[in-house]
């Protein structure tokens, strides 16, 4: 017999980006909330995802900047990576944010339940012996690394989880998967001094990005000495004395100290009782309608558990949406095309809106403008290469913004406003961007599309 943990307006399973955002917004809207988490408040993003990887990438940036300092007139010697120091820095950032988040959740009077929960009714989640009743239930149990059947031993074969705890820099790494997480780790390993080879079954790195962006990234990685095998699926791996030997389809083998598997993430939903109460699933993902409702009782789901972009800010947006929806507000549906995507490798790859290919597939008559960062003063100062590409409907609004270059990730927010507010190129072109910034490259692309190129050779 289980005890009662009480009844809440909203009971949430999982305190990652999606779950905790829903909890915070629901509490603001005067709902009583129970937030169930078996590990740590903040979930994947804060502890094993966005934040630690971006800390490693920044250590990598510092390492590269130190190595190349002579190009900027700074005399310095680079003496290597101190992994203990890297982890100390990384953990300091995580701990500070974790403390802030914990305080925030507490200050909004959310009931945090520590432990592993399971859905035990259409309005009930049970943790251990205690049942929490919810007038609404939110499934937010997130995702975990997929492994393509590779046996992860945590030593010679690893995923992002083990990679975040490495105690020394490997001499060489094969990365399985050239998606966002794969190229980010490739960038880190390379900055830290390793030989890196990425194996990607599709024809391009970051294959969900506009093809022009993929090509620019490939060129930049080649210059950085990051190798890649594109269009060649992985076949098998065996561990050797000194590391791993990876075999690709067709027979080519690559030896390295480490195999890092980064072939995507799958939902955490097994054995959590979802199907038992009638929630529909597909390949482990929970199926929801456009209101993130599962179709069963008052059960909603969000984040990496459903088949939308696996991004923390999608989790935030969905969490806010669900809370507002339950509260009886009528929030506008999320336009997933309008969500910015950033890959934080060096150079960064960033986009919002549609790729040229998708825009064409959807029947748009499009115009596009590529503006090379070679013409951008600030990019030259940073000595970075890349481009900005803007896709617009002919005589219509901007449909997509695609960028490659150091630090361009921050520029997606401008793209986010432009895309979501359906601005015309001429409306952006009217606003001359500040000099010298990288954002001017975006400005120049819009000026060109508006028929009034400024610093632009056509």
């Amino acid at each position, binding site marked *: 017999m289980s005890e009662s943990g009480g009844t809440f307006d909203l009971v949430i399973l999982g305190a990652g980006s999606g779950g905790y955002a829903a909890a915070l917004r629901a509490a603001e809207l005067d709902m009583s909330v129970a937030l169930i988490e078996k590990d740590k408040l903040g979930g994947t993003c804060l502890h094993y995802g966005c934040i630690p990887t971006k800390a490693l990438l920044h250590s990598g940036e510092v390492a590269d900047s130190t190595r190349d300092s002579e190009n900027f007139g700074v005399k310095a010697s680079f003496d290597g990576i101190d992994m203990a120091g890297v982890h100390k820095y990384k953990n300091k950032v995580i701990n500070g944010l974790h403390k802030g988040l914990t305080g925030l959740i507490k200050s909004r009077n959310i009931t945090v339940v520590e432990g592993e929960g399971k859905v035990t009714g259409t309005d009930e989640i049970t943790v251990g012996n205690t049942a929490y009743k919810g007038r609404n239930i939110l499934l937010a149990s997130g995702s975990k690394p997929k492994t393509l059947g590779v046996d992860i031993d945590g030593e010679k074969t690893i995923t992002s989880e083990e990679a975040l705890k490495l105690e020394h820099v490997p001499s060489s790494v094969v990365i399985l998967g050239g998606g966002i997480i794969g190229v980010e780790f490739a960038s880190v390993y390379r900055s830290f001094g390793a030989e890196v080879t990425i194996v990607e079954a599709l024809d391009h790195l970051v294959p969900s990005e506009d093809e022009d962006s993929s090509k620019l990234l490939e060129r930049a990685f080649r210059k950085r000495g990051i190798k890649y095998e594109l269009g060649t699926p992985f076949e098998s791996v065996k561990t050797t004395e000194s590391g791993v030997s990876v075999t690709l389809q067709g027979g080519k083998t690559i030896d390295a100290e480490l195999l890092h598997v980064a072939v995507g993430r799958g939902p955490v939903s097994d054995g959590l009782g979802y199907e038992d109460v009638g929630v529909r699933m597909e390949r482990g993902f929970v199926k929801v309608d456009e209101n993130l409702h599962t179709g069963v009782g008052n059960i909603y789901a969000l984040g990496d558990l459903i088949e939308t972009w696996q991004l923390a800010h999608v989790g935030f947006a969905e969490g806010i949406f669900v809370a507002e929806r339950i509260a009886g*507000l009528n929030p*506008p549906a999320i336009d997933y095309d309008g969500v910015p995507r950033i890959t934080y490798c060096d150079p960064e790859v960033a986009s919002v809106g549609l790729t040229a290919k998708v825009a064409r597939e959807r029947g748009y008559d499009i115009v596009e403008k590529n503006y090379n960062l070679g013409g951008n003063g600030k990019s030259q100062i940073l000595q970075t290469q890349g481009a900005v590409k803007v896709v617009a409907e002919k005589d219509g*609004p901007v449909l997509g913004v695609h960028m490659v270059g150091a630090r361009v990730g921050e520029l997606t927010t401008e793209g986010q406003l432009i895309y*979501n*507010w359906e*601005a015309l190129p001429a409306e952006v072109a009217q606003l001359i961007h500040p000099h010298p910034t990288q954002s001017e490259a975006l400005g120049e692309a819009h000026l060109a599309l508006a028929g009034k190129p400024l610093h632009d050779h056509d």
Partner: protein
Amino acid sequence: PPRKESSGAGAPNGSSGRALAKPPVRKLAKDLGVDLSSVTPTGSGGIVTREDVQRASAPAAETAPPAETA
């Protein structure tokens, strides 16, 4: 093709009595000297469209003064 079904991407509902228009359209109205609240909206959800603003500015186009600053 229709851009997206959801009416006001980015336009929150239930805001105070002000006319609903996407931000760039507000800027267009300002540049053309058109008072948004006097424009009849034709967009879905009562949103003032670019075309609405242009139509409202058409008769006075020749004499439209340059926009004043906020």
